[in-house]
Every structure is written in C-alpha cells, then in structure tokens.
C-alpha cells in the first residue's frame, strides 16, 4: 500500500526479495501506478509479472502476481481486503492504517497465506483479531 507521495504504508512479500532491491522495486511500481490516469485500466505488466492496483482516495493498493492468476479475481480481492479493513477500523483512513500497522498485518495474514487466498469472509477474518483486542483490554 502506498500513498500518493510514494511512501510505503505497508508491504508484504511472499517471495524473497533482497531488502535493497525492495525499495527500488517499490519506487518503480509506484511510479508506474501513479502515472496512470483514470482512463487507463488497472492492470499493468511489469517485468515478468502483472500488477493490479486500485486507488482509494489517497492510497494505492498494489498487488503483484505472476502470469497464471486471474486479474479480475485479484481486483475483487483488493476490494474485499479494503472492506475488511473498513469494518475493523470502522471507516478506515490511511492514518489509521499507519498507526495500527501490526493489526493490518494480522488481517492480511488471515486472508492470504504465502500468496494463496485463505479466507474471504469478513466475520471469520476479524474474529481472532477481536478476541485479541478483548484480551489486551482485559
């Protein structure tokens, strides 16, 4: 997830990428996404994989997949993810994501395991997190 200024808000890699290469990769990816206008479609081809991105206000969510994935399903998945975040944070804004990065990681881990989609049902994803919250409060 990146904001319009190009700052990474969250990044998760399911394939190993060297740390110094990561920043480079992220900058390039961001650049290609930011340079797209509204008229253009959300799928970009980058090196040997595909990028699927969606823009929500000032935040871009970009998912990189290899050739065999169904782009439209991933597109839908991004939206699903945002809906989950929305429900958890009750109207999420990018600042909230920043401050609760660990929670967002947990949510993402519940939904995607090593690059495969595990769970897409909102209630089930958020349940462990809610339990955790309850516990830390009590």
């Amino acid at each position, binding site marked *: 997830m990146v904001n319009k200024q190009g700052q*990474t808000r*969250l*990044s998760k890699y*399911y394939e*190993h990428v060297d*740390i110094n290469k*990561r*920043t480079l990769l992220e900058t390039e990816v961001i650049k290609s996404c930011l340079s797209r206008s509204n*008229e*253009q*479609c*959300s*799928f*970009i*081809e980058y090196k040997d994989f595909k990028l699927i991105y969606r823009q929500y206000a000032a935040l871009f969510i970009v998912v990189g997949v290899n050739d065999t994935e*169904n*782009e*439209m*399903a991933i*597109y*839908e*998945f991004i*939206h*699903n993810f945002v809906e989950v975040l929305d429900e958890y944070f009750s109207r999420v*804004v990018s*600042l909230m994501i*920043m*401050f609760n*990065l*660990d929670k967002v*990681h*947990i949510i993402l*881990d519940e939904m995607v*395991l*090593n690059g*495969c*989609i*595990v*769970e*897409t*049902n909102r*209630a*089930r994803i*958020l*349940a*462990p997190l*809610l*339990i*955790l919250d*309850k*516990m*830390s409060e009590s």
Partner: protein
Amino acid sequence: MPGQRVFLHSRTLPVRMVAPSLKLQDLIEEIRGAKTQAQEREVIQKECAHIRASFRDGDPVHRHRQLAKLLYVHMLGYPAHFGQMECLKLIASSRFTDKRVGYLGAMLLLDERHDAHLLITNSIKNDLSQGIQPVQGLALCTLSTMGSAEMCRDLAPEVEKLLLQPSPYVRKKAILTAVHMIRKVPELSSVFLPPCVHLLHERHHGKAVGLPILCFSSVDRRIENRMGTPAHRRRVAHTHRHTRNRLSCPWPPPFTSPTLTPGILLGTITLITELCERSPAALKHFRKVVPQLVQILRTLVTTGYSTEHSISGVSDPFLQVQILRLLRILGRNHEESSETMNDLLAQVATNTDTSRNAGNAVLFETVLTIMDIHSAAGLRVLAVNILGRFLLNSDRNIRYVALTSLLRLVQSDHSAVQRHRPTVVDCLQETDASLSRRALELSLALVNSSNVRAMMQELQAFLESCPPDLRADCASGILLAAERFAPTKRWHIDTILHVLTTAGTHVRDDAVANLTQLIGGAQELHAYSVRRLYNALAEDISQQPLVQVAAWCIGEYGDLLLEGNCEEIEPLQVDEEEVLALLEKVLQSHMSLPATRGYALTALMKLSTRLQGDNNRIRQVVSIYRSCLDVELQQRAVEYDTLFRKYDHMRAAILEKMPLVERDGPQADEEAKQSKEAAQLSEAAPAPTESQASQLLDLLDLLDRASGDAQHPPPLDPSPGGALVYLLDLPCAPPPPAPIPDLKVFEREGVQLNLSFIRPPENPALLLITITATNSSEGDVTNFICQAAVPKSLQLQLQAPSGNTVPARGGLPITQLFRILNPNKAPLRLKLRLTYNHFHQSVQEIFEVNNLPVESWQ
C-alpha cells in the same frame, strides 16, 4: 482528517534524551513529524540505538514493543538485522503478544539465507503441537511464508497431523502450509496426497464437523469458550474443561463450521492444484474427483448459497475461480474429464451475474477453462462470444482481459474471433497504451485475405495517429500482413509507400530490400511506381527508407519517368534537370545517411545511361565526390569516374537494368534469412557464372561489401548480392534425375510417406528431399502437416506443400520439398512430425527416419 492533523501537532513530543521506550504510535508520530529525510533518519537512528541497547539489556517486558518499532522502521527501508535474535526470543516466550510480534518479525526479517532461521524450527514444532489454535495459526503462517526446505521436511509430520484436526481455523492454514511445503520439497507431495482426497470427500458428503469447541487460550490462562448464539448451537462435539479460569463470552462464531466450510475447501483446492501441477501421477489420481468438483461448483452456482461468502451477489467467487482453475488443469488434454465438465461450464457461463466485477471474474476464468480443455465446439463459440461481450463493456479492465484472451484464442478459433473484428478495430482508438497495443496485435492477427483491404485502411489510419512506441510494431505488422495477403501488386506497393511516408523511420531494415525487390518484380508497374516515388521524394527527403527506395527506382527506371505518360496516375512532366537536381539534393542533404547517399550516387550513375542528355552534370557530381570524406562514397565515386573515363564503352552494359531477383515466396522471411546464411557460406565459393556485366557488378559489390559499414544498413545494392543469395532458389526447373534410391519412411492404415533424394551437381552441399504422401485407404486424409528437424550443423528449409489433403483411394498425393544444406558433410539425421486427420481421428506421429542412404550426405 483535518481534525486529526491538529490533534497530532498538539501531541508532538519533544526530542528525548533518555526515556522509557516509546510506544509504536509515538514513534510513528515522530517520524511523521520529521520534515526532511535527514531529520527522519536522525529520529530513526536514535530510536534504533535505543532499541539495540534495550535488546542488549534483555528487557523481556518491553521487548515486543521494541521489535514492533523495529519492524516499522524496517518497512521504511532501514536495516534491521539486529532484531533477528530477538524474534527468536519472542517466539519462545509464552505470552501471546510476544509470540505475535515475534512471528511477524520472523516473517519479515528472517529468510532462508540467514542461518538463524533454522533456530525457530524447534519453537515452531513446539507451538504446533501444543494445540493452542491461534498460536498454531501463527506458527503455520510463518512457516508457510519463510519455511526453508529443511524446515519443511522436519515439520511435515506435524502439519499433516494438523490437517486432520477438527478445527477449521487451523486446518485451512495447515492446508496452505502444505502447499508451500510441496513447493519447497516436492517429495512431500506423496505425504499430502491422501489427506486431500479425504478432505474433499468430507466436505462433499457434508459431514458436519459440528461445533468444535474452540480452545482459545491466552497463554497465561486457558479460556473455555462455548460457541455462538443459540441460533447456531448444534451438536456439541468436544468439551475441554480446564480447571483454571473460565470465561464464556458469546460472540459470533468464527470457528464453527456449517455444513460446508468454504475456507477449507478453498485451501484444499489450492493444495490439489499445486499437487497436480507438480506431478502427472497426482493429476491422474485427481481426475477421479472431477465429478465431485463439478457437483460442488454446481451447488455454488445454482443454490444462491449462503451470504457468508457471497460478494456482490455471486456466491464465493474466489472458490469458484479456484475450482475452475483446477478443472482446467484436470481437463487439459483429457477427453473424458472435459466431457463431464462441458455442461457445468455452460451453466456457469450463462448463470453468472455479470453486472459486477465478481461475476465477470468468474466468467473470465470460465472462458479460460473452456479454451484450455477439449470442449465442445458450441462451448468454444460461447466462450468467444462472452469475450466479445466483454469487449463492449465500459469497464476498461474487462476489455483488457478480453483482448488478451482473444489474442490467445485467435490461433485456434480464428473464424469465431473474426466475428468480433469490428469491435476489436474500435478498440484501436483506446487511450490506454496497453489496451491499444493489445488491440493492435489482435487486429494484425485477424487480417486475412478477405478483409485485408478494410483492415489495412483502419490500420493505416491508426498508424498516423498512434503513439510512437507502437509505431514500429504497427508498421512492421502492416508490412507483413500486406506481404501475405496483398490482393494486387499495385495495392501492395501503395501500402508500402504509404507506410514509408507516414512512419518511415520506424520500419525494419529489410523493408527497403523487400520493396525494391517487389517493384523489380512487377514489370507493368515500373512506370507507376517510379512516378509515385518521385512525387513522394520531391515532397520530403527526410524519411530514409523512402529515399533509398526512391533513389533506386529513379536510377533503374529513370527513362520511364521521363517518358511522361502513364495511365494510372496523372501525367507528370518531369525534366531531366529536375531529376538530377533532386538526386543531388539527396546527396548533399545532411539528413541523408551514408547508405542513402550511396544509393543516390549509384542512381545518378545509372541515369547517365538512361537519360538522353549530356552527362556532364553527372560527371561533375561524380568527380566532386571522389574526394569525399566518407570512404564508401569516395570509393564509389572513384570507380564510377573511372567508368566514365576509361571504360566508357562498357558503361552501358554495366549499368543496364538489373535482372529480376528470384524470391521464394511471401512466407519466405525465415527461409530468406536461412538462405542468406547459406549464401554467406557459398559467397566464398566462386562467383556465379553469369554474364560478364553482372560479374563486374559482382566484383564492385564485393568490394563494396568489403569496405562496407560496420552497422547493418539494408543491403546496399540488393541485386547482385541478392542474386547470390537467391541462387539457391533458381532450380525452378526440375532437378536432374536422382541416383539415390527412394525411401519409404512411414506407413499407417494406408497412408504412406516416401522420401526421394536429389543432389544437384552444381551445389555439393545441397540436398533436396521431396516427401510424397499417398493414401490408399478408404478415408480421406485432411489437414496434413509435415514438419521436420535436422541436427544443428545442417540447415533446413521447408517449402510450402502442394496441398494438405490426400483424397482416398490413391488420390492426388501431397508433395513437399525440403532443402537441406550440409556444407560440413555431417551425417544426416532427420526427424519428422506428421499431423493429419484420418477416419475422423486426429493422428500425430513423431519419428526419426532411419536407413537414410549414405549418398545423401557424403
């Protein structure tokens, strides 16, 4: 948002010297407060120093907080390797919050390259076996992300146990961890294969696991938890009681399982997909479950299933997509499974609601599946129509995927895709670069002999307006298509001309050669082409390929230009002086490449014989260039000057019109390249025995080549070199009778294939093989295609066959000529691949030809 901003500023902390550790929130705030990169770095470095100190001191209470901060910093791109050992300690701790951060850190910081990762194997093992579900979940998650091969091997039995556990929460994670393990250690597939089938069966028979009581425990306390609201209470499966504190808090049951748990199903399908992709044995094994998968998918599609997993009206699209993908893998190349799927695919295709993206995603996957398996023809047409509908959709994403898929389909279902041609052509106008590129590729693929004129018009219009990066592709595509499908030569010349004028700088290098050869071949159009080229040249001398062709033409056919009458375009009065002036302009222009200048100079020379007037002007120009700085031009000028002075009597003979260059045919691009290589081999061989005039030209040209440019401009004078190149094609006359015996290489059900060998005496390295396919059976042979392969040291060219149908009962056989160049006299080996349809079956045979006669290659 503005309100929040104010809130932040009022809470900016002053820079601390020594302080208790910051919470993560505060750190983030501080970093945000930093105005410049340098400031940010400062803040972070200070914080890292604190963190390092705290790690050294080994403070267990705040360790997780420190690590969380470290991870945040890591995400911003700063080094964080000193946190690795802390991850281990945190994982080993007994508090859940610690473990959580520890595992997260492990996922982010550790990986296979560091040795530290093996140390967590033990911790993971402990956690996995303790039966505390969230912890197990964490451990599985981490394992699946960064587990190396050794770890996977060690922990495989644990994971396998977890696969069969009652709780779906852990199970689904275990399944996906298994996927990762298989990727890392393919031998483990055998371990995970049996559980798959079991899992799938279990779901299908709806064996409800009931209500597993979740034992969720904070690691300090064990909490017993009775599931759900009364509405969800069903049979109680287990009850774990623990003596310690009990807390029963009802909340929506995340861990129950209704009759079908799609979470597990999704995981299982992914696992099966992975297994099938890895090993063909697994593939065969899982073909048996195709009916079950079909059933599951059918239920999903028809019963308008539970709202739990439905997204915008489509029930669990992700699961549907996964199942479809698995069906695709299972059905590929397998008739039986494909048939079982046919109905289902049709059903899915028609029933899915396409108003929202989720539905379209499922539909897209369906189309992909239909394309890949052996589906019925009607189904394929349906798929193409769906794609056509996508093209009309207003959503660009959908158009994009539609274009991509159509591109894949166009080879196999050409006629079906043709129907959507107008829509595709409309897509050329897209503003999005990737869309228009796809549309361009597809349009080029759709050009065939019937629609070529219309398509060319569209494409040429596109060429004028398209963005520069697409121009080269578009130009070469148009030229290629024109070559293959040109209805008349004149149209062809016109098209090429048009392309050269609009996008001249972007065409490929051999376009010039192609065009000159084409014009040379079209006797009746000489006057027409030279006139048009002259006009084009007069307007604009900046497009190099155009200039080169024009110069060549004017040189060759200058007399026709001056004649003044040509029926096809308006008569043009051209003066000799004008022509000469134009060529001189080209010579002198700074825009002309050296190659172009060469063309122009040679053209001038040729005009000296064509024109009736005085040659003084030409002689002057030529002698000026004798001292040109460009070596190439200088050489030419010197030679031409010598021609004028000393060999004037030969001038006319040398500069007469060039002989027609032979070419193999429109699809000869690869062959032409191959024959060019062959020609280079035989260029060392003595020059052909042609008339003396052309011999001189050859010598001149060889000299030119010797002094030629280092880069690869188009061949400077295509004809003499070209004549060398295409010498090998000259045997249009039947070759002399062959002393080598024929060979029968293939026989099946009355279809027979014979080879006959010919070694033309002029060229010892060349072997011509004619294959003859005959049919003595009762059924026709259709779609006959023969392909051949030879060892690398030999070169093979296949000519077009005489046809691709052999009628039954000894009908007209198909013949095809192979040329094999064997300059090193390497042993000849030949492998043939035949595909044809016979008795309503498609036959494919691949075999190596044995018993090749020795005379064929010695």
